[in-house]
């Protein structure tokens, strides 16, 4: 590494970069793709599969807008390299509803007005599903701590906490 290499040499174009095959399940559907090794799970979902529910916020693991479940656990899809997901099962906000029936947490977000602009909402809901599964919903304080990886710049936290807490008591 030289001192001038850091910012001046642009990364090469996509078509010349190494790629790999990966087969994974997204919302119950099996996909086999060949992707540039640099592709994140978030980019795979949005750019390759057209699933734009998961949002690109900070793209650095700091905001939680990209949260999905991988093998049942909530993770930041922006920091997950797609090529590492061979055989994985991914659930996004598009895969939560049962047909026309919303997941209870989706319904609770509507009923309790837990969104304003809505950008963070898919990540909040997926993180909330993870939080409920992990059992960290014993109090409002506990929910706030265990949901702290999801930022809402509109400030809907009060109703988000209520939605997660109410849903945890129902399912």
């Amino acid at each position: 590494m030289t001192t001038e290499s850091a910012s001046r040499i642009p990364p090469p174009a996509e078509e010349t970069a190494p790629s790999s095959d990966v087969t994974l399940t997204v919302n119950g559907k099996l996909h086999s793709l060949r992707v540039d090794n640099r592709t994140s799970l978030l980019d795979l979902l949005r750019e390759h599969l057209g699933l734009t529910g998961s949002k690109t916020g900070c793209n650095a693991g700091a905001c939680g807008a990209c949260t999905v479940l991988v093998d049942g656990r909530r993770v930041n899809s922006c920091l997950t390299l797609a090529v590492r997901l061979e055989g994985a099962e991914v659930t996004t906000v598009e895969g939560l509803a049962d047909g026309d029936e919303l997941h209870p947490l989706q319904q609770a977000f509507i009923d309790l007005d837990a969104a304003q602009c809505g950008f963070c909402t898919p990540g909040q809901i997926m993180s909330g599903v993870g939080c409920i599964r992990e059992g960290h919903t014993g109090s409002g304080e506990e929910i706030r701590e265990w949901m702290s990886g999801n930022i809402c710049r509109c400030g809907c936290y009060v109703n988000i906490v209520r939605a997660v807490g109410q849903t945890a008591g129902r399912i």
Partner: protein
Amino acid sequence: MYPFTYTRVSGTREALAAGREGGRYIAGGTTLVDLMRESVERPGALVDISALPLHEVTVTEDGVLRIGALVRMADAAAHPDVRTAYPVISQALELSASAQLRNMATIGGNIMQRTRCTYFRDVTAPCNKREPGTGCAAREGVNRAHAILGTSDACVATHPSDVAVAFAALEANVHLLGPDGARTVPFADFLLRPGDTPRHEHALGQGELITAVEIPAHPRPLRSGYLKVRDRQSYEFALTSAAVALHIRDGVIREAKVATGGVGTVPWKLPAVEQHLIGERPSETLWTAAAEHAADGARPLAHNGFKVDLLKRTVERQLRIVGGDA
């Protein structure tokens, strides 16, 4: 992000061969992928080690706790043997990052995570750690979050890990495996102070892997806990922190293990505080007097002088929390 080849290895031998050829190991990837996107890290070859058999938490009959390098932070924190025997480890882990990141990041990767110094993360800024010889932008820059202990003219960046502070306090050992076989390094020797070579951050050789972190058996009963002070209530790096473990028998402190985070270029053990506690009976005055030594040797910068007092108070409060009101 710069391009890289990707190899998934299924066995240790395969991993070491790839590592010897210059491959960069990836486990949770939460630090590495983030820094690759910023072009701070530019590995040409990633070697995915997540399938290696390093996912176990075990306790031997004589009380030695061994956490496999690939155990996720969330799983290590919630493991009953960890939670029961070493609350300080569980608390340090659960006060780190976010639930999502703790589901991804591993114990081995956690202690290998790189500094959050904003100049290190900005490839347009001088940084001796990122590009040796270019200088340190933090020394004369905005350095409110930087280190006051273990610094050098070349580097003042803090080590960001919380659980590493608990490991330092508990005098953990790091188990390594490399092309020349296995070896064990005391935690105090694993992470390196910057000195004149801030680029060299750890004791790992080329192609060497962390296989486990081991906590030696400590006398029981052992009370322990972790306190983290930061700019917001959750999901933030430490300004100061304190890991404390006390063995109190017949009303006397027999063993004291104390380390601090957010203030050092490496997790900072506090032997002067420990020595002040051993052989004494818990009391309000003892906690205050012992914590007076917490910032011994501190060299504050223009914006982080507040950390000297904050550190003493953090250690004092955590001694009181763990040691009780006597």
